[in-house]
């Protein structure tokens, strides 16, 4: 068995096997890279961008969003005790913590109503329909109305002009894992059409909780993504159904008798640009969560309602409308907009014998923003943005007035570029957190200030970058379990990429973070890094190696998540891929708190990895 150190050494030795490239080969690589970076959506001016181009996603053999998310520093991918994607989870009993991570598909936010973040269901979605992914720290520039965020994730779908025709992908793997995707895209008379269907069945490793029945987080997911796009309008339809075992669920000591859920999500949106300066969108989203939970010692949050079981369907819906205007006035690029959004709780499940009286059923948000991006010299840009939001709630909860302010400066000089941003952000509490809390104090918004800087050096065949981010939260929503109202963070990120030859590329990253007053800790140091290498062994055989390392100051244990993928193009239309994930079975783990429900004593926490060790074989056809 390879150790992580040997793996790293072999990866680096592989770099020495460079092939001879002609001028034409190099030109084709440059053409691919430049044309991927020239896409309208990829805008370095928006903030600190971590970009996954189509080629990078293909090189990584990334099939689901968590394959990519697990390499994103500051906020890595995690699942919570309910088996849901929740990167900010503390492992305690909070219902959902990642409402400050925002997810957008083709520029439209996926909200998932009461939860507040599309990451919950879409955090591990199939990304076969995706062309490229942009991660921005904090809130990116306000060229469209965006919700305040620690991290904003933008996924953009494939374009029918480059991916026309039919694509089919079939995969099988360890423990009976299997997935199937089918995609068709075409262009007719200036309009593009795409439909992408996928099905995934993912039986995962069982987790020993000391009982006869171990914990399970198996799931089956069906996903449909479709669009039609013209010159000045687009329409999207997304359907997602996920049937899953919910790990520890609502059991205090993670020994549930029953713990299952079925989620159904419908998303519809229509975007239109009546003129080159005006843009509008209408979005409807509905989420049905059918839950079935029981435990003989009562359930978390629901003990006040009596019996230790819950069964039924929670229904929430969101309706949003937005209108924005953008125009260039001299050297000022002015944009402004208005957005209205209403989230509704349409139905609640019953709790044992009792029916809770529900008065809080609606939350409305009205937002206005203004932004000026002033290019005062040919290589300097100053950006000023402000947004005001009024959040109103029924059921006797207070309204919130939220302000966002953002000041940015960008300077470029030859191969060097420098960015700096100053943020003041106010976060509203998610409706779900308000709903499960007994306290009215949690209605208070969180204030976050941030100061971030980035310096980057780019050459034709490589780039390197350093980022320093500092943030402070007042009245923080992160610390549910302590009275600590203030947290602060400092992050150092250094990353880069090197195109060693037309057939070989390398990416690397190092990350250090210092957190003060986070969760139950006075301070926490967090370290991580990754190294990936992608190269062609032959014209039609490609190898990918990736190694992610994590360590933190709680136990200073090293975690290594290794991925190896070998793909073989049998012909122009058929490709076979063999992929191994978490090969050392030593990927980063999350600690889940457990409490003895009878005595209130803390039990030994459960330590669970976010990804299992798995080997998959996949066949792909394009015709």
């Amino acid at each position, binding site marked *: 068995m390879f150790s992580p150190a040997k793996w790293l050494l072999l990866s680096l030795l592989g770099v020495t096997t460079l092939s001879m490239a002609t001028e*034409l080969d190099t*030109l084709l690589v440059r*053409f691919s890279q430049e044309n991927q970076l*020239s896409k309208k959506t990829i805008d370095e*001016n928006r903030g600190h961008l971590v970009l996954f181009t189509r080629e990078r996603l293909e090189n990584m053999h990334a099939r689901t969003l968590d394959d990519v998310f697990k390499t994103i520093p500051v906020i890595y991918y995690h699942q919570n005790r309910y088996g849901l994607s929740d990167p900010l989870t503390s492992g305690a009993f909070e219902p959902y913590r990642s409402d400050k991570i925002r997810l957008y598909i083709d520029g439209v936010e996926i909200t998932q109503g009461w939860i507040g973040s599309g990451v919950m269901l879409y955090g591990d979605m199939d990304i076969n329909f995706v062309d490229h992914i942009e991660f921005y720290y904090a809130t990116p520039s306000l060229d469209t109305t965006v919700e305040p965020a620690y991290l904003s994730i933008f996924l953009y779908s494939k374009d029918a002009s*480059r991916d026309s025709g039919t694509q089919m992908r079939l995969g099988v793997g360890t423990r009976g894992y299997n997935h199937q995707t089918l995609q068709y895209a075409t262009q007719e008379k200036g309009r593009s059409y795409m439909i992408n269907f996928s099905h995934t069945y993912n039986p995962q490793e069982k987790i020993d909780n000391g009982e006869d029945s171990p914990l399970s987080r198996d799931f089956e997911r069906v996903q449909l993504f479709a669009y039609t796009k013209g010159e000045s309008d687009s329409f999207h339809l997304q359907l997602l159904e996920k049937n899953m075992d919910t790990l520890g669920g609502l059991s205090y000591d993670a020994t549930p008798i029953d713990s299952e859920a079925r989620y159904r999500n419908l998303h519809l949106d229509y975007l239109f640009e009546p003129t080159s300066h005006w843009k509008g969108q209408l979005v409807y989203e509905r989420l049905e969560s059918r839950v079935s939970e029981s435990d003989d010692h009562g359930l978390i949050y629901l003990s006040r309602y009596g019996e230790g079981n819950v069964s039924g369907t929670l229904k929430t819906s969101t309706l949003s409308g937005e209108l924005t205007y953008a125009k*260039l006035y001299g050297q000022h690029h002015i944009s402004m907009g208005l957005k209205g959004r209403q989230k509704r709780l349409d139905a609640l499940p019953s709790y044992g014998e009792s029916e809770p009286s529900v008065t809080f059923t609606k939350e409305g948000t009205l937002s206005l923003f203004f932004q000026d991006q002033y*290019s005062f010299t040919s290589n300097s840009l100053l950006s000023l943005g402000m947004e005001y939001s009024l959040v109103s709630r029924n059921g006797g909860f207070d309204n919130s007035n939220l302000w966002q302010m953002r000041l940015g400066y960008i300077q*470029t000089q030859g191969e060097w570029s420098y960015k700096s941003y100053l943020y003041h952000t106010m976060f509203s509490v998610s409706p779900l957190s308000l709903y499960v809390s007994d306290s009215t104090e949690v209605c208070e918004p969180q204030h976050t200030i941030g100061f971030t800087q980035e310096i*980057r050096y780019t050459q034709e065949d490589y780039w390197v970058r350093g980022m320093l981010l500092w943030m402070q939260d007042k009245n923080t929503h992160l610390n549910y379990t302590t009275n600590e109202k203030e947290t602060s963070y400092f992050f150092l990120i250094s990353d880069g990429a090197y195109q060693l030859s037309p057939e070989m590329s390398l990416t690397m990253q190092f990350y250090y973070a210092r957190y003060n007053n986070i969760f139950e800790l006075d301070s926490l140091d967090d370290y991580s890094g990754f190294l990936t290498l992608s190269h062609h062994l032959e014209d039609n055989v490609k190898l990918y190696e990736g190694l992610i390392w994590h360590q933190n100051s709680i136990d200073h244990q090293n975690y290594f998540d290794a991925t190896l993928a070998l793909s073989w193009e049998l012909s122009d239309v058929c490709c076979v891929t063999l992929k191994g994930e978490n090969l050392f079975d030593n990927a980063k783990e999350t600690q889940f708190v457990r409490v003895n429900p009878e005595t209130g004593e803390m039990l030994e926490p459960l330590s669970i990895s976010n990804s299992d060790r798995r080997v998959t074989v996949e066949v792909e056809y394009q015709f």
Partner: protein
Amino acid sequence: MKKYLLSLLLGFSSLYGLESQTTLRLYESLFHAFVHKPTPLVYVTSGEYEKIFKQSKGLHLTEDLTQADIVLVTDESMFLALLPLLKKFQKKPIVFGTQRKFLQLSPLFIGTLYWKKGRVQLRFLSERLKRANIVLPEKFQRYILEK
């Protein structure tokens, strides 16, 4: 990086717009390998390519199909509209495409430059190059398929 600042103020024409500098360099390199003239005449109906080729000193655009040395086909309907005319020509222009399926669509295509999994692919068919009397330089050899 400078282009990011400019792009912000000027905007892009389309979501998946082509980057003009490397696109021009690549097509100039290809078309000069097909035709041994200082400025080959190119016929194209795509507004996006037209805008890019207008910046070229090594390629000239023509609206007259009979004068064209090279026809760049970017969509199927455009090619099907031109096909009856092309069939009538004694001296046929070189037909090159931007989608993989074009090689199956008509034997007039000598090759294509298309996207696959985020990377551009260049393909020529050996028999069609011979038929069009085109001998490509050595650096093109790995992109020529026998069938």
